[in-house]
């Protein structure tokens, strides 16, 4: 087999779930050593397709061939043996074991019935070098960063002689430099003739990495082309089934009195002396690198974390710190970064999740008025065009974008005065993204004070009135967003500097060097 030859073929794959045709005749093929991106909105069928390919689900129709032979994987183990590995969004690292053992887990080199430690560490070191990881094979895996752990997963696929590695949203929790390393590793893998299926909502990554792109919509493959034949607009239009006029929605709103005032907020070692004001109708962005302390500030304002000094005023009233219930009562809503961990009770219904912060108001003497509760949930769920058969559905069954809408609904039911949204569009598709921006814009017009925390600079510049940059726990600047403000200015402030032309040039130079190299 040589580079560019087709070795995996899927023809007319069908997968049925009760009441849904999750896959309805998907066909595509993988060539040796290519990066093939799979694009589609949440719920389009990407995950199901991956699960069929890796032996998690059995297909209900169609043909799946590797090297011209039809395969029927009964388990992921069989798929791995045939060379198909997957790096999932949820990592499967054993945190107490060292790196070498994690790499060779389930497949440890043996000698005379016991683990051959010498070979193990030698082989592991080899793989670490290949992955450009400057760490010892004896490092405990739990001490690694998420990005490094992900590399270990990729390394694990290598130990199993993978011919195809599927990466599902690999960069969703990586820092920029980690993303860069990942891209280098992908290049190396491709050079070794390993094929990659790359799944990401970040379309610039897709455009940068891919050789070919396949778009899936409603369980069918819509289009499969070389990357060069696609424009980003065309890609989005194919994903959502209509042209998207404007991803970012921000209509002007009347900005009036201060609603949230934060004064000299300090938590030692996390953030220092943070002061800012958000007014009615204003959308303020918080931008900074991962780990700069953006989310931590919001957690303190909302009261889930404590702070040592400073004060928070909502509509002029001082808020008692460290008490989320009091913050909610004062009118702060907080859509957290991690919706599954902090935002939603996944096994429970949309109905309960959407009304949980408001139950007290929906009850008389502790007994819930169920009609009011239903009407309330229905209203917001419908207003946000959440796709679900019923509000009795468990939230865990919804796609990421729809889950995010339920989180928003949960806070909107209590009609907050201040709404904090942290990474509101993380891991959700471009169509839902645009809808969520629209919702935020509407809320601002209705007079809500909104804070958007994000690590996506385009998002901040697209939907906010002004941006506050955070660097190492300190506020470095507050910039009004207008056509004159550039990405580089914001980025410079977020990197600790003030805007200065020299720095700008430096950055440009660095970019050029990168793109040449």
């Amino acid at each position, binding site marked *: 087999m040589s580079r560019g030859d087709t070795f995996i073929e899927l023809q007319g794959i069908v997968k049925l779930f009760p009441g849904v045709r999750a896959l309805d005749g998907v066909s595509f093929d993988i060539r040796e050593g290519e990066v093939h991106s799979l694009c589609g909105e949440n719920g389009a069928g990407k995950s199901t397709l991956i699960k069929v390919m890796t032996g998690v689900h059995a297909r209900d129709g169609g043909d799946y061939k590797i090297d011209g032979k039809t395969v029927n994987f009964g388990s992921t183990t069989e798929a791995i043996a045939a060379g198909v590995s997957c790096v999932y969004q949820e990592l499967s690292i054993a945190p107490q074991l060292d790196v070498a053992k994690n790499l060779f887990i389930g497949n440890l080199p043996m000698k005379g019935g016991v683990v051959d430690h010498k070979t193990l560490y030698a082989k592991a070191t080899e793989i670490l070098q290949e992955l450009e990881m400057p760490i010892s094979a004896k490092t405990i895996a739990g001490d690694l960063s998420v990005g490094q752990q992900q590399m270990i997963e990729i390394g694990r696929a290598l130990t199993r002689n993978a011919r195809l590695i599927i990466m599902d949203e690999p960069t969703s929790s990586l820092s920029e430099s980690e993303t860069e390393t990942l891209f280098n590793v992908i290049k190396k893998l491709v050079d070794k003739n390993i094929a990659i299926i790359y799944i990401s909502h970040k379309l610039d990554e897709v455009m940068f990495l891919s050789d070919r792109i396949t778009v899936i919509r409603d369980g069918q493959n819509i289009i499969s082309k070389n990357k060069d034949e696609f424009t980003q607009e065309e890609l989005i239009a194919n994903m959502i089934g209509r042209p998207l006029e404007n991803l970012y929605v921000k209509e002007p709103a009347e900005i009036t009195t201060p609603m949230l005032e934060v004064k000299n907020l300090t938590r030692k070692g996390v953030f220092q002396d943070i002061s800012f004001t958000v007014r009615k109708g204003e959308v303020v962005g918080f931008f900074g690198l991962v780990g700069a302390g953006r989310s931590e500030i919001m957690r303190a304002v909302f009261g889930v974390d404590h702070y040592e000094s400073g004060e928070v005023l909502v509509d002029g009233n001082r808020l008692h710190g460290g008490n*989320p219930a009091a*913050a909610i009562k004062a009118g702060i809503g907080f859509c957290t970064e991690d919706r599954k*961990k*902090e935002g939603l009770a996944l096994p429970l219904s949309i109905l*309960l999740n959407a009304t949980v912060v408001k139950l007290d108001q929906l009850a008389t003497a502790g007994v*819930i008025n169920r009609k009011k509760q239903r009407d309330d949930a229905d209203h917001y769920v419908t207003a946000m065009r959440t796709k679900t058969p019923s509000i009795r559905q468990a939230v865990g069954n919804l796609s990421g974008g729809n889950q995010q809408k339920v989180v928003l609904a949960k806070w909107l039911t209590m009609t907050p005065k201040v709404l904090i949204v942290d990474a509101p569009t993380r891991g959700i598709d471009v169509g839902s993204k645009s809808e969520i921006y629209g919702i935020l814009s509407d809320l601002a017009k209705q007079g809500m004070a909104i804070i958007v925390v994000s690590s996506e600079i385009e998002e901040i510049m697209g939907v906010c009135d002004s941006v506050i940059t955070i660097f190492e726990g300190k506020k470095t600047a507050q910039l009004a967003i207008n056509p004159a403000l550039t990405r580089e200015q914001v980025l410079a402030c977020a990197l600790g500097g003030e805007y200065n032309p020299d720095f700008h040039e430096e950055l440009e130079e660095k970019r050029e060097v990168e793109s040449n190299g």
Partner: protein
Amino acid sequence: MADTAEKKGFKYYWGKFQALNGSSVFIAMIVAMIIFEVVLQITHAGTGSGLIFITPSNLMMIFRQQVYIGIVAFGLTLVMLTGNIDLSVGNMLTFCCCIAASVMMKTDNAALAVLATLGVGAACGLFNGLLVSYVKLNSFITTLGSSSIFNALALIVSAGTVLIIPATCDPAFLAIGKASFGPVSILVVWFVVIAVVLGLVLSRTVFGQRLYVIGANPIAARYSGIKYKRDLTVAYVITGLCVGLAALVMMSNALSSNPQAGSGTEMQIILCVVLGGVAVQGGKGSVWGTIIGILFYGVLSAGFTSLHMSQYLQWVVMGAIMLFALSLDVLKGKGVKLWKKK
């Protein structure tokens, strides 16, 4: 999509039934009843006529035996929904029985006995609840420890002897467990009242719905402004009150308290709740499910006894059933498919 509408009918309602909490346990219970009936018919061939196991009087007897642990199981459902557990309910029951008996022996005042017993039950629950929610001890360990304390307290109160309430005591006390409303025994009334009240608390009140959220995702509960410590403590106190009530009903019937009376019943009670479909991780289950669990347990226990299975062997079987039910629960939670659909 179009074909789903046409297939409505048996399959549709079957699906609805299956979606109900505890439906599979309900079927298992019916199957068990039929098996016991068949086996008894075979072993008693020729001796009698008609049904042996599935008779109204036998089923009523089974039900009556389940009332005490049932009342406690309803309370425990609240605690287990939050993902916690209370292993002390058995010895708490013993302790409350001793309190009821000794107060009756010393004062012969029914009102005082009721207050004291419920008060002690609530205090025991409060003790557990405060440790679990405010001190943040693991509920398993906490209640294992408090269980031993309650056991010792029961021995201290009773001085290790059997306390006997005179049959001539305050008739109000006797009414608690022996009265009947026409043909309906007060035992049935207690069972139904507690089931309905706690069932409504769980499904209709803010407090009940919060318990589900706490169980399903305690972090999200905190971010949603739920005071989970307070709610969890209240759940433990309610369990304690249920234990107190069960002790009163039990004492009113038995009129004697053995310092070992309730010890070991925690396993039966937990088994009932687990069989009823309350997830050990919390967040899933209902009082309705627990009712089915209680009845199923009663049927099994009565069935085994009627087959002359020794008490020891019954414990083995019950223990095995509990571990099986827990395993099913955990495996289902992990998304493991127990059988493959063709």
